[in-house]
């Protein structure tokens, strides 16, 4: 992989990550926040793949599989939480679930 392709791929990963981050910060709907987190995870995974192919090492791909597994687990827990929030509050607004303030 040549340098320009890698830079472009890392840039894409960075842009994706920032987009995900920004949408986590500005969205109030919990489902959208979950999706944004997935985007950030994918951006991170992309960066690992790029690094793995740059140094011709399998570690990047191994790491990506880890991230994929982790994302699956996270989504299952997250969705369960979202169901509970909706069940309790009849809304998906994350700001409404602020009962745990100090």
């Amino acid at each position, binding site marked *: 992989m040549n340098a320009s392709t890698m830079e472009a791929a890392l840039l894409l990963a960075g842009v994706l990550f920032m987009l995900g981050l920004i949408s986590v910060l500005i969205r109030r709907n919990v489902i959208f926040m979950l999706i944004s987190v997935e985007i950030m995870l994918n951006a991170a995974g992309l960066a690992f793949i790029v690094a793995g192919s740059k140094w011709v090492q399998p570690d990047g791909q191994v790491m990506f599989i880890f991230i994929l597994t982790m994302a699956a687990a996270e989504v299952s827990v997250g969705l369960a939480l979202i169901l509970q929030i909706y069940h309790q509050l009849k809304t998906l607004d*994350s700001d409404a*679930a602020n*009962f745990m303030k100090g």
Partner: protein
Amino acid sequence: MENFIWLIPALPFLGSLLLLLFGTRLSRTGVAILGVGSVGISALVTILLGLQFLSEKPAFYHQEVWQWFNVAGFSPSIAFHLDALSIVFIFVITFVGFLIHLYATAYMAEDTDFSRFFACMNLFVGSMLMLVMADNLLLLYLGWEGVGLCSYLLIGFWYKDPANGYAARKAFIITRVGDTAMAIGLFILFQTFGTLNIQAILTQAPEVWSVGAQMAVLVGLLLLGGAVGKSGQLPLQTWLPDAMAGPTPVSALIHAATMVTAGVYLIARMYVIFDLAPVAQLAVAVVGAVTLLLAGFSALTQYDLKRVLAYSTISQIGYMFLALGVGAWSAGIFHFMIHAFFKALLFLCAGAIILALHHEQDMRQMGGLRKSMPVVFWTFLIGAASLAALPVITSGFYSKDQILWYTLAGPQGSIWLYLAGLVGAFITSIYTFRMVFMTFYGEAKTHIAHPPGMVITIPLVILAILSLVGGFIELPHNFAHIALFSGLMAPVLPGITANELLAANEWLFQVLAAVVSLGGVFVAYLFYQRSPALLQNLERSSFAMKLHRFWFSGWGFDALYDNLFVRPYVFLANLNKRDIIDSFYTGLARMAEGFHVMFSQTQSGVLRNYVAGIVVGAIMILTISLLL
């Protein structure tokens, strides 16, 4: 018999312990039997031991019960040393103490805290016995502090009145000043001799110190400090009049048998040190002489019957100090014994009067009690005669005359000390008979509630007999010459020889002392009985009134100490009420609380804020790691 020495202090301690543990569950009779019985058996053991001592005439009895502790070669033991000096003291403590206990069963019969009273009284007697029987200074100091504690407990016995609690604290704190001086003295003694055993110190001291050695003087003065505190002498005498807040049997016990005589005992016991330190010994004599005058003048002006007696005790202890100070050791101890008899008698009589008159203590409200309380009158008269040292018939005359004689004719005597003693004797007999005339003569002013019963009168009669005949065991040289008491003391305390020039005319000074004491009685009779108008004339002059107030307040010592120590202390305490040091720690706590409020605000429960926080933190960490 000498195997049972340990019983003497152990019995009162045991009695006190049992009363403390089970006293509230016992009936009043049970408490009385336990409280009086323990001291009674102890008195019995003492008398048997004393008889054996008199017949065998050993130098001393010694019994070691067990070793207290053993640290780095310092091994004080719980051991008792009985020689003539301590036997006289334990006899007075147990026997007079027993009579006071017996009397107290009637005096305190109505009190709700009957068992607490006897527990404290027993502890008092036990501590005092420990003090005089100890063979080392550490054990003596244990008894010394025990006596202080018990005086605190008993003076403040009726603790519900704040004034009583104040008097108790005053006694405790003022005597503590003396105790500190004494403790420092003991440290110096231990450093010098490596032991606190009294006999060892007394034998080693002349080898280590020459006469007038600085250290000996210092130790002498420090021991005098301790003695002054406990015995209520100048300048620490102010606690004693206020100690009258306690029940009357307590006053009798403190004044006659325990506590205030501890100082006399300490000085007599450590006489070798004072022999080596003439300056300290002179200080003892001067303290005694000045105190007896100050207290005598104060006693003249008091209206409270018990306060007159309290000042009188201070003054009589002054005589004992005077005797010890001029080296008339045995005369001082003799006066201690006789004083114990008549002062206990006077206090118990006063108690009977006070009880009969619904706790009235003001002599102006009394009067005319001669007919209604004949036994109390006659016994009080005997006690008063002994205190005023009426010549020939009373034992007080023999003991006081001996002191006066040696103050003048002894090797360390001086005309000034003698004059102080003589003036003191004159005042003593004035205030004593002022008391008699105000209380028993004239018109009756208060109705009598309870005439005293048998339990009250029996101790009075016994003490009255002792006050009359107790003096006949020691008569002056030119007067039958019986010297049983000084003979008994001779192996323990050095004798004294009178100046030969004066000795030829001893009778002259005896007549002088007799005239002085009779003159005092006459003055009291003149002012309080025959022509009270004289007194009223005196009361009109403003100078006399000012003097009266000054003496009444005990020469302003209370006010002086109040201004010198109490007020500045209270001022500083008020200044520091919010505790300056503590405010630093309070500040720390306040700061932690502030941070707590601040950080708990950040926990808003809004998920997006947390994410923003994580992002900001991550950016900061990345930036810092890139820059560094």
